[in-house]
C-alpha cells in the first residue's frame, strides 16, 4: 500500500533545543495512527510540521504526496485538523459552521448543502441546525468539530487530543465516528493521553524526548514489553524521559 505520510529524519530545532529528532515513519492509507508521548515529548511540534504550520529544520517528509517544505498550501487542501481547543465558532449556528468551513475549502454551494444535510443526519443534529454552537453540550461540540474537520473529504485528518475532558460514553461515540471515517478511506493521525484509546489504533508510535522510542501495533508492543496494557508499555518508556513536561 502507498503510504500517505512518509517522513525521513524529520527534525525541528528551536535554538539549542531539539524538539523533534530525526523522526522516520510512514502512515498508510486508511490507517488509524496513534501518536503518543508525555507532555513536552514533541508530539505537537511533529504534528504542526506535518500540517504545514511549522517549517522543519532538516529531514524529509511528504503528506498526501506533497512536500512539507514547498507544498504546504497543497497539503492544507488535503488534510483536516481538529485541536483540543474547539475549532468551531461559538457564535455561529451548527449549519453556519459547516457552511463556513466547507466554503473556505472551496466547496460549491450545492455541495455544501448536500453535505450539511448528510452530516446533520449522521450526527442526529437535524433539530439543532440553527442552534448556536455555544449552546451545545461539550460532547456534541466535539463530534461536530470532528465532522466539520472532514467536511471536505480530506485524505488525512489530524486530531490533536480530540477527546480531552469528555465522559467515557461520549469518547466511545467519538471513536465510532473515527472508525467510520477510517472505513471510508480517510487516514487518521491522532494524539491522545488516554491509553485505552491507544488500543483502538492500528499502529501506535510513542515519543520520548523528541525521538520515536517505539512504533508498532498495540498487540506487538504489549508483547515486546511484556506488558498487559498499553498503559504499562507507555509507563515503561516514558519514565526514561529526561526532559520535564511543560
Amino acid at each position: 500500500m502507498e503510504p500517505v505520510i512518509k517522513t525521513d529524519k524529520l527534525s525541528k530545532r528551536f535554538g539549542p533545543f531539539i524538539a523533534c529528532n530525526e523522526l522516520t515513519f510512514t502512515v498508510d492509507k486508511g490507517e488509524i495512527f496513534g501518536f503518543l508521548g508525555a507532555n513536552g515529548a514533541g508530539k505537537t511540534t511533529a504534528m504542526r510540521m506535518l500540517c504545514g504550520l511549522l517549517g522543519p529544520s532538516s529531514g524529509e517528509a511528504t503528506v498526501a504526496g506533497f512536500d512539507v517544505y514547498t507544498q504546504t498550501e497543497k497539503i492544507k487542501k488535503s488534510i483536516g485538523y481538529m485541536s483540543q481547543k474547539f475549532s468551531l465558532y461559538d457564535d455561529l449556528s451548527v449549519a453556519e459552521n459547516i457552511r463556513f468551513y466547507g466554503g473556505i475549502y472551496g466547496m460549491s454551494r450545492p455541495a455544501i448543502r448536500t453535505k450539511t444535510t448528510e452530516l446533520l443526519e449522521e450526527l442526529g443534529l437535524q433539530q439543532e441546525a440553527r442552534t448556536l454552537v455555544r449552546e451545545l453540550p461539550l460532547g456534541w461540540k466535539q463530534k461536530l468539530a470532528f465532522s466539520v474537520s472532514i467536511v471536505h473529504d480530506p485524505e488525512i485528518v489530524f486530531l490533536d487530543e480530540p477527546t480531552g475532558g469528555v465522559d467515557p460514553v461520549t469518547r466511545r461515540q467519538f471513536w465510532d465516528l473515527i472508525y467510520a471515517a477510517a472505513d471510508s478511506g480517510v487516514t487518521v493521525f491522532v494524539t491522545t493521553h488516554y491509553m485505552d484509546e491507544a488500543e483502538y489504533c492500528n499502529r501506535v508510535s510513542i515519543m520520548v524526548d523528541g525521538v520515536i522510542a517505539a512504533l508498532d501495533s498495540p498487540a506487538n508492543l504489549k508483547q515486546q514489553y511484556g506488558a498487559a496494557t498499553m498503559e504499562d508499555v507507555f509507563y515503561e518508556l516514558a519514565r526514561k524521559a529526561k526532559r520535564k513536561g511543560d
Partner: protein
Amino acid sequence: MKTLVFLLEKEFRQLLRSKQLIGILLIAPLIQLILLPMAADYSVKNISIVVVDNDHSTTSRKLIEKIVSSGYFRLKGYEDSYTAGLKMVEQDKADLALQIPIHFERDLVRENQKQVFVAINAIEGTKANLGGAYLGSIVKDFNEDIRLQWQVDNPAPTISVASSNWYNPLLNFKLYMVPAILVTLVTGLVAMQSAFNIVQEKESGTIDQINVTPIKKYVFIIGKMIPLMVLGIVLFTMGLLVGWLFYGVVPLGSWWVLYGSLVVYLFSMLGLGFMIATYCGTQQQAMSLSFFFINIFNMMSGVFTAVDSMPGWAQAIVTTFPPSHFIKIMRPVVLKGSGFQDILPEILWMLGLGLVLNTWAVLNYRKTS
C-alpha cells in the same frame, strides 16, 4: 475570491449577531460626540481678572470699564496692591491680575508712554495665550480711543491692521473640535475591535483551525478588514449626521475626498490593530495595549494641542501616527473645503503607514504561528 465571500459572510453574521456589542460600539461614541464638543470648549470667555488701580484717574477707570465690558473678562474684584492681586491669582481666584500704576494718566500725557502690568496664570497655556491676546487688543483699541478723545495730533506715520477671520468668522470653537473628535471616536472603535477580534479567535483556538485550511493569509486579513471597515464607515456617517444636527457642521469639501480618505485611514488603523493582536495572547493584554495607543494618539495627534507647537522630535514621532494625518485631512476638508490635491500628501502618508503596519502584522503573524 470565492473563499472571501464565505469569510465575509461569517464575519458579518458574527458581527450582526452580537447586537449588544454593536449597540455599545455605535451608540457610546455618538453620545460622546454629542457631549464632548460641549465640554471641549476652549473658547475662552470668562477669564477672571483682578484689578489693582493705583491711579484712580478717569483714564484708568475707563480702561477698566472697557476691559470688563468686552465680554471676555469677568471682574473678580479690586485689590489695593499688586502683591494682593498676585495672591488672588495664586489661589486660583483669578486668572489674571492687572495693575495700573500710580500717575498712569499723568505720565501718559506728559511722557507719552506708560506701562501697565499684567500677570497671567500660565499653567493653562491656552487660556494664558488668549487672555494676553484679548487684553492686548483691548488696550490697543483703548489707546486709539483716548488719542481720538484727547485729539492729539499724531505726526508720526502709523500702519493699522485690518484683520479678518476666514472659514470660521464667528470663532466658534466647536466647529473646530467636531471633526477631530469624530476622528478619535473612529480611531478608538477600529483599533480596539480589530485587535479584539483576532485575539478572540486566538483564545478560542479557531485561528489554529484557520491556519491549517488552504485559505490565503491576505484573504483572511481582507475578510477581517471589510466588516470592520463597514462598521467604521457607518459610525463615521452617523457622526457626520450628529455633527450636522447638533452643531450645524456640514462638510464643505467633496464627499468623495472625505470617504476616500476615510477608507485609507481605516486601512492603516486596522493594520495597527492586527499588529497589536499578533503580540497579544489574551483579550486583557489586547485591551491594555490598544488602550495605551489610543490614549497617546488622542493626546498627541493635534486634537487638543497643536502638533506645530511640539518639539521637532515629537513631531517626527507624531508623523507615524495615522490619526494625525486623518485629522489634518478632516479639518481642512470639512471646514475649508480643501480638495484632493490639497490633502494628497496626507493620504499618501496614511497609505504608506497602512502598508507598513499590515505587512508587519502579516509577517509577525507568520512568525508566531
